[in-house]
């Protein structure tokens, strides 16, 4: 889904160099969606909300429900990457008008379909989240997700995945590991 957004953005930028300028809504919507994703993953929830609403407003102006559904899917993907699972009600409301690609992605998010993840960090995190939901996650994948989130400076998924690690260490009774993970969490939260 991110690829779509990036494609949109790329088309817009390409349009900058030559040809007629792209329509405003495309530019605005893609910018907003990108901003939303960044904000949400970084933990700036209010900004994320604002950007998402702005994106949806722009897409509504087109009257194309499938585009709105896509936006909703992007949101659900971001949430999945942060281990916040739900049935994506925003998309379900528009499922009737969604295109094939959107529905397939929705199924993927719900864990009912498989999909090859790209090497992009966001896509990898989404994949990790989906696999967690499906119960097919390995510890290595957990630590990979932690590293990915850490590399990007994405607080939300980082905290979520660190939390998972912490719970696993607690269950195992490994006090030292718990302490280390907790210190890392505290570092992210700015509490030490």
């Amino acid at each position: 889904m991110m690829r779509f957004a990036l494609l949109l953005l790329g088309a817009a930028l390409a349009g900058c160099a030559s040809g007629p300028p792209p329509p405003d809504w495309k530019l605005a919507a893609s910018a907003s969606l990108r901003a939303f994703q960044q904000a949400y993953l970084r933990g700036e929830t209010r900004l994320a909300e604002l950007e998402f609403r702005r994106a949806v407003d722009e897409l509504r102006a087109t009257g194309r429900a499938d585009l709105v559904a896509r936006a909703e899917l992007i949101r659900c993907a971001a949430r999945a990457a942060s281990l916040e699972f739900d049935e994506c009600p925003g998309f379900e409301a528009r499922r009737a008008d969604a295109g094939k690609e959107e529905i397939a992605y929705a199924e993927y998010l719900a864990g009912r379909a498989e999909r090859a993840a790209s090497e992009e960090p966001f896509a990898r995190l989404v994949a990790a989240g989906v696999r967690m939901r499906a119960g097919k996650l390995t510890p290595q994948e957990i630590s990979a997700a932690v590293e990915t989130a850490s590399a990007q400076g994405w607080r939300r998924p980082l905290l979520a995945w660190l939390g998972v690690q912490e719970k696993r260490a607690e269950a195992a009774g490994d006090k030292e590991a718990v302490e280390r993970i907790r210190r890392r969490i505290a570092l992210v939260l700015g509490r030490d």
Partner: protein
Amino acid sequence: MSEQGYEREPGVTPVPRNPGVRVGMLLAFTILVVVSFVGYVLYARGVFEPTQRLVLITDNAEGVRVGMDLTFAGFPIGHVRRITLREDGKVRIGVRILQREAHWLRTTSVFTLELPLIGEAKLRAYTGNMGDPQLEHRAERPLLRGDTNAEVPRMIATLRAVLENVDRMTASSSPLQESLRNARVVSERMAGKQGVLGAFLGDEENAKKVLAALDRANKLLASVDGIALKLDSVLAKTDRRLYGEGAIADQAQRAAVQANAVLAEVREKLKTVDAILANAQAASGNVRAATTDLAALRAEVEASIRKVAHLIDEINRKWPFERDTEVKLP
């Protein structure tokens, strides 16, 4: 039967032949003494003197007794005959004044009743102007009352208040003392080394600093003059370098022309991005003010982890926790 019939033993003590004579003399002398003494007393009390009546009116006749003297210049000229109450509650003091002394009292005479701290009350008469007509018979005058005992508490209270005020004023921490102290300090400073300047700045150090600053300012002004001269010569050199042959300016000119073209292109592109940026700015304008709410984030993340606890448990069952593999050093 004669009265001398009854027999009695003759007395042992010798009785003179006619005791009656001596006894009669004694009794006569006694009566003489009594009469003359009574006469003397009557004279002393002025019964034989003609008197004039005077009535004194007062609110409170405490201390006045019948027979009390009315004195003028310390000399008794009359006495109180009766004390009665009038219908309006005031006291009537009836005074008898000796006629031969009555000429001391005039119509403008003042009568006072003085009650000293110790001792008896005194009725006094004062005459200010002897030229006024004489006091008439049966005159009525008000009696002024001077009760020291009543005045004493008031006097003491006033005195105490005054003393307290003086005390406060002269206390070491009173404003008066403060002002005096300040005045003294100021005058001391004025007489000191720094003179009036020191007095106003309050501190020798400050005064010195001010003087030093003045010195420096002078020196600075002197040096600025020198620098200005040097600057002139530098400017002259720069001019030659910039605008002479093979000058930097030429090359810069050409580069600038090229840059202009690129800039024009970029400007176009930037215009489109401007629109995006404008939007983004508007959107984030509000939120930028708010910092990332980490506490809320933490709360949300914890909530979501709790929700996926069952998934974590599944993983725990399948794969036990291994510190080395999982918790890599970043």
